[in-house]
């Protein structure tokens, strides 16, 4: 049985449909991520799970119990807010003790439990400090301790790392995964950061305009995007207009891409498409090779010109033009390259890729 089920949930604010008929189920012990741009409805969905907003329609079920309209204080789950929302007039100790006080624990038990949690997040020394006397990272640890102190069934995290600087954020990625594994508590994580989502999650639901575009493992969402939006939002992607010329056996589609290029691509869901259907061919820049001469007989190859490049350190992103018209990007790794760059602007090259590494996406 899934720990959390969301069934056909919708929510409207004024005239805006923020969450549109969303259904999903989350298994116990998952690190589940809602990923999407701002305004896609991910935070509203999280707030409905927390009980801070009530759905207009649909059901939210926690361990078999319908909690759709249950007040937030009665739900056995907690939220870590973007601002951490530490109570400024309470010490670290009092903040962490708050949920236990609300649950009417007796004083001695509260003391023991809070001490233990503060030890877990290495804040014992700071118990008597006030939130404004702490660093960003310490505040976040207080927020974590406060929401885990009474062992909730579910922890909701609303972009908890966005206030931290880059290096601390990466450190916290490791900490959060460790925390989730150690406690075994189911995490529902909201972020607009695709790298964060892929690094942390067991599964990702990519949201756009209040709907789930794709829900799958991070690798699947990245390598096999199902929609134009998912391909475009997660990482970099070449998205070329394409048309299905023919459907072959063993799930292979014959495509005409950008009016010039023709090749076969295998597709798990080939059944869903028809001959003549239009859409896009999506292929990641790191799947594309570029050389001065054609080196690969088994790959699809075409001549191209170098239009420009962006040096990223570990890799360089090159932009090529096929027939002076079709723009295609290739991410070339700098792992073995001793020179500064492979090509100059205007160089003639041959780009090649395995068409099966790409996907046809319907319009």
């Amino acid at each position, binding site marked *: 049985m899934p720990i959390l089920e969301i069934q056909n949930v919708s929510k409207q604010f004024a005239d805006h449909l923020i969450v549109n008929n969303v259904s999903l189920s989350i298994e116990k012990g998952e690190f589940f991520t809602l990923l999407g741009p701002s305004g896609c409805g991910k935070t509203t969905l999280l707030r409905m799970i927390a009980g*801070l907003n009530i759905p207009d329609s649909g059901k939210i079920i926690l361990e078999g119990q319908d909690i759709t309209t249950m*007040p937030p204080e009665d739900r056995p789950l907690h*939220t870590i807010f973007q601002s951490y929302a530490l109570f*400024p*007039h309470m010490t670290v100790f009092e903040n962490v003790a708050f949920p236990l006080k*609300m*649950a009417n624990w007796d004083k001695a038990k509260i003391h023991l439990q809070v001490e233990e949690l503060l030890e877990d997040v290495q804040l014992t020394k700071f118990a008597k400090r006030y939130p404004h006397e702490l660093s960003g990272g310490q505040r976040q640890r207080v927020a974590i301790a406060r929401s885990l102190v009474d062992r909730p069934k579910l922890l909701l995290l609303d972009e908890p790392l966005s206030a931290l600087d880059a290096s601390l954020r990466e450190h916290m990625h490791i900490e959060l995964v460790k925390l989730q594994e150690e406690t075994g508590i189911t995490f529902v994580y909201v972020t607009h950061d695709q790298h964060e989502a892929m690094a942390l999650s067991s599964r990702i639901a990519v949201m756009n305009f209040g709907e789930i575009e794709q829900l799958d493992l991070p690798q699947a969402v990245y390598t096999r995007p199902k929609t134009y939006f998912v391909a475009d939002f997660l990482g970099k992607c070449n998205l070329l207009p394409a048309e299905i010329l023919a459907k072959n056996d063993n799930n292979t589609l014959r495509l005409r891409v950008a009016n010039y290029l023709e090749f076969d691509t295998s597709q798990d869901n080939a059944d869903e498409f028809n001959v003549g259907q239009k859409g896009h061919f999506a292929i990641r820049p790191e799947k594309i090779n570029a050389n001065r001469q054609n080196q690969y007989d088994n790959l699809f190859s075409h001549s191209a010109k170098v239009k420009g490049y962006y040096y990223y350190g570990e890799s360089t992103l090159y932009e090529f033009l096929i027939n002076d018209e079709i723009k295609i990007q290739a991410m070339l790794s700098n792992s073995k390259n001793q020179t500064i760059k492979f090509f100059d602007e205007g160089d003639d090259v041959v780009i090649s890729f395995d068409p099966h590494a790409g996907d046809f996406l319907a319009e």
Partner: protein
Amino acid sequence: MQVSSKLSKRLIFSGSVGFLFLYIPLIILILYSFNDSRINVGWVGFTLKWYKVLFSDKLLIDAAIHSLLIALIASIASVILGTLAGVALHKYKIPFLSSLIMVPLAAPELLVGVSLLLFFLLINFTLGFASIILAHIAFCLSFVAIAVRTRMHGMDDSLIDAARDLGASPAKAFFLILIPVILPGIIAGGLMAFTLSLDDFVITFFTAGVGASTLPLAIYSMLKMGVTPEINAASTVIILITLTLTVTASKLSPQLFK
């Protein structure tokens, strides 16, 4: 460097002139309250006798006690009502109501006084302490509401969500989280309400009726016999109280005084 230090010197100079303009009359009044002379002309010598006269003047002492009592009741009532109004204004953000709360502060006191008098007569309300207190609540409430709203602007709205999320009922979230967080605003508003009520003359004048008297009203009636050193002493005491309360309020809620 040179330019800025010149500029700051000019600023300090013009600032000082402004403040002197505001405070010279008050300073003279305070000095004369220590002057050993019946008339306010020329310095004769230092004395505290006017304060002795003041504190043995039963009429004035009674009026002062009335004033303090009215200010206390009016400020407590307006703290309660004003806090609720301020919280509601922040939460529901109705622009029309937000401007409307300012009107009692901005409207000419004379108008407010006359309209209150008409209102009390219309509903057959006997003028006296009750009417003064009601009138004072009416204009103090706005001040508290604005102080509370200002404080809430600086507050993280997710604090209340977090309180609910962590197990607090709406009432507990209000009293354990919201009130303590906005308390400086509430106290600042309350102190300002107390001062405004204590110092008010015009509105009190219209709503006092015959029996009731407050310190400003008593001083005004004494003025008919000229400005005596005793009035200087009484005024000095009022200035001191006002100054203390205002400074305390500004310490508690700096945003309110910006």
